[in-house]
């Protein structure tokens, strides 16, 4: 089997016909030997925890530089001191979050080797290039965020502004490369499998895989939604406490604008992502919806519980034909069911399904909130007046975080039991070493301490009066 993109079509994927599914010869068990650990749950838990800690920081890495550079730009155009104070404050918070992101990201790269040595040994030469490029952009980010933040009032004004631009670019480039690897795991290409061995790696093809683009745009917008609403929430709280000066107002409007524009756009990108999953990973899509059998005009069910023994979705409210409409843009379209693959090749349906529903539920609510803000701002040129609007903005940040994590659970648990989709099983990639429980416990403790310390510090930062610029003006 060749994992390559034939000319003229996106990529080879298996035809969704049960007769043609998964032949053992297509699969890879790993280059390091036969250390199969059937239950990879400890390793998966550890990896999931580390990713859940890191991903919110990535959102800030993607979106925050653009936000403080926007405010910095406003300052350069108008010379108003509150813009400078705000840009300075935000860039300092960004630096702290970047530092925490640096170390939590380091753990991830260690865990690739510690938890999945056979995955790295077998496929490192296929997908590693993306991480090489990521390393470069990470470097650029680390260099220039330091120059920018420590350069306030020290470098010439124009030079200082210019040193912020690589930070914005590197944040985007870094996520591009990491998403490329994730896209590849879900839609592997750029190598051949011959007798269970990986041959002829084509790293550029693996890097530019078919899942990259929608995942990238989806995550990029998620970054703006999460960072935008969380930052806006801080200023919404200040607004409710009566702090409505230009400084706080700018903080609210800028952060909220980024989030409010991204949230409705995310609905469209989500649709694109969903249809790609329907096409490339039909079993995953079936798990999103708990669809047991291949169905024409498949319904969309809200609530209910999937019984994996009887392969039935029990309870819930059924909306006829909606799933077919969403997945194929045709109310009578055919959607593949879970039954088309053996039970061992299916992801845990309820986790994936509820994560998916949580994500789209919150996403829809945030899109509505964003659209409301844009509408009021556009028609009336002012902020909404209802106190409920500000309370909703305060809630939107944490909710966006939940949606973010739910989205990653959807795509990553939905990938199970594969680490490289339909090529290598998670159980073949996991380390044979013992003692993962101890490692997991240690990591939980460290992250609890880290989370507590960062939260405490950011609260204190938020409570502090604005930077000197304001006192002077």
């Amino acid at each position, binding site marked *: 089997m060749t994992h390559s993109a034939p000319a003229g079509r996106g990529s080879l994927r298996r035809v969704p016909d049960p007769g043609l599914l998964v032949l053992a010869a297509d699969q890879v068990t790993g*280059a*390091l*030997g*036969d*250390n199969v650990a059937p239950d990879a749950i400890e390793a998966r838990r550890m990896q999931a925890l580390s990713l859940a800690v890191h991903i919110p920081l990535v959102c800030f890495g993607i979106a925050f530089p653009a936000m403080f550079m926007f405010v910095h730009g406003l300052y350069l155009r108008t010379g108003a001191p509150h813009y400078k104070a705000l840009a300075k404050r935000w860039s*300092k918070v960004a630096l*702290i979050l970047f*530092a*925490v992101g*640096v*170390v939590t990201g*380091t*753990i991830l*790269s*260690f*865990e*690739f*080797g*510690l938890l999945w*040595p056979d995955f*790295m*040994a077998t496929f*490192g*030469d*296929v997908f*590693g290039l993306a991480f*090489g*490029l*990521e*390393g*470069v952009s*990470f*470097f*650029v980010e680390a*260099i220039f*965020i*330091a*120059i920018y*933040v*420590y*350069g*306030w009032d*020290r*470098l010439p004004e124009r030079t200082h502004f210019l040193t912020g631009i*690589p930070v914005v670019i590197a944040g985007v480039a870094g996520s591009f490369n990491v998403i490329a690897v994730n896209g590849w795991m879900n839609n592997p290409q750029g190598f051949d499998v011959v007798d269970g061995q990986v041959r*002829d*790696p084509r*790293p*550029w093809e693996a890097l530019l895989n078919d899942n990259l683009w929608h995942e990238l745009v989806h995550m990029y917008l998620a970054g703006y939604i999460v960072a935008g609403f969380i930052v806006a929430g801080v200023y919404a709280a200040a607004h409710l406490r009566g702090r409505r000066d230009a400084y706080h107002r700018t903080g609210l409007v800028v952060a909220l604008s980024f989030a409010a524009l991204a949230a409705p756009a995310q609905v469209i990108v989500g649709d694109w992502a969903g249809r790609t999953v329907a096409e490339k990973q039909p079993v995953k899509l079936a798990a999103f919806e708990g669809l047991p059998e291949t169905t024409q005009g498949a319904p969309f069910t809200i609530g209910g519980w999937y019984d994996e023994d009887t392969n039935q979705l029990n309870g819930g409210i059924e909306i006829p034909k909606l799933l077919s409409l969403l997945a194929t843009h045709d109310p009578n379209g055919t959607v593949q069911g879970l039954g088309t693959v053996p039970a061992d090749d299916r992801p845990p349906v309820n986790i994936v399904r509820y994560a998916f529903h949580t994500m789209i539920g919150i996403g829809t609510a945030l899109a509505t909130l964003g659209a409301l803000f844009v509408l009021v701002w556009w028609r009336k040129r002012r902020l909404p007046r209802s106190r409920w609007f500000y309370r909703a903005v305060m809630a939107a940040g944490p909710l966006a975080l939940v949606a973010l994590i739910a989205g990653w659970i959807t795509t990553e648990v939905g990938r199970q039991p594969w680490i490289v989709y339909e090529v290598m099983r998670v159980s073949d990639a996991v*380390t*044979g*070493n*013992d*003692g993962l429980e101890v490692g997991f416990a240690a*990591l939980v403790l*460290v992250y609890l301490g880290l989370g507590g*310390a*960062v939260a405490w*510090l950011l609260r204190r*930062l938020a409570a502090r009066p604005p930077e000197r610029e304001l006192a002077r003006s």
Partner: protein
Amino acid sequence: MAEICLGFIVLGLTAYGVLGGADFGAGFWDLTAGGDRRGGRVRGLVQRSMSPVWEANHVWLIFVLVIAWTAFPLAFGAIFTTLAVPLFLAALGIILRGTAFALRGQAGTMREARLLGATFALSSVVVPFWFGTVLGGIASGRVRARDPAADVDAWLNSTSIAIGVLAVLSGAYLAAVFLAGDARRAELPDLERAFRARALGAGAVTGAAAMVALLVVRSDARPLFDGLTSGSGLAAIIVSALAGIATLALVWTERFDIARGTAALAVAAVIAGWVLANEPDLLPGQLTIDAAAAANATLTALVVSIGLGLVILLPSLYYLYGLVLRGRLDQAYEPLDQRFRPLSAGDEEQP
């Protein structure tokens, strides 16, 4: 192509050993600085010197990891399986140290600063030790390429411990040299003297420890010793020893800026010597460089990307370190025990 990739790894390890090592060493001096009052001045300088550069210095580690798993995936998998314990401990130390350092700059009370400072300083000593044990395990041929499994002996052996101790000491030595230079730039003669003395002491101890380590390697890992005492390995060790002695002389005569260069050379030569001593093996006795290397398409792609990346990175790093060494990013100096003015980055007047 495999050699170029290995060259990138040596470059990354050297840069991490020198720059990252000095940051860990700064933590060593932070740890041993004494009580709040007495140590406040040293800690203030450590905080001020490390702040703008430690993140960039840390990224060299990531640089090494990503090249290792792309260019030598099999060796990477084997190393991370066999040496999982010290690598995991190092990773935990990295989280604690990075976070504690970033947050200490924002500490609001002495108690907070003490807690964060102790976490930062302790983990700064522990992390290079664990990395040293990992290098020792690899260099002494204790990583199996086929069917690897976690192995206590691979990191709890005399070579590993000797290299671990050496890693801690050489970091402290580098840090003292760099901090003496920074103290001069900040016009703090008392700290300049203090770090000059520390640099001389640490240099002497590190040199002695290196001799002991060589004897340990001789009895524990004879092939490595033979590699280090013959041919190009020997040449590298001699360069390292000369650079170390030159650094001591330069510190003695208070020429700290040149001493930065020679101190870095001493570390770089040891790392190069280790790789040369192993040639043509990557995992001694287990896996040659060629056998460990990924397919040519991957190596070419990696060399091209990292090569182009370095075209961006090297001028950027030059710009950063140039700004730092010319004092353009310097914060006002304040002893740490007096410095609970948070958000200080950029708020003070230029000194």
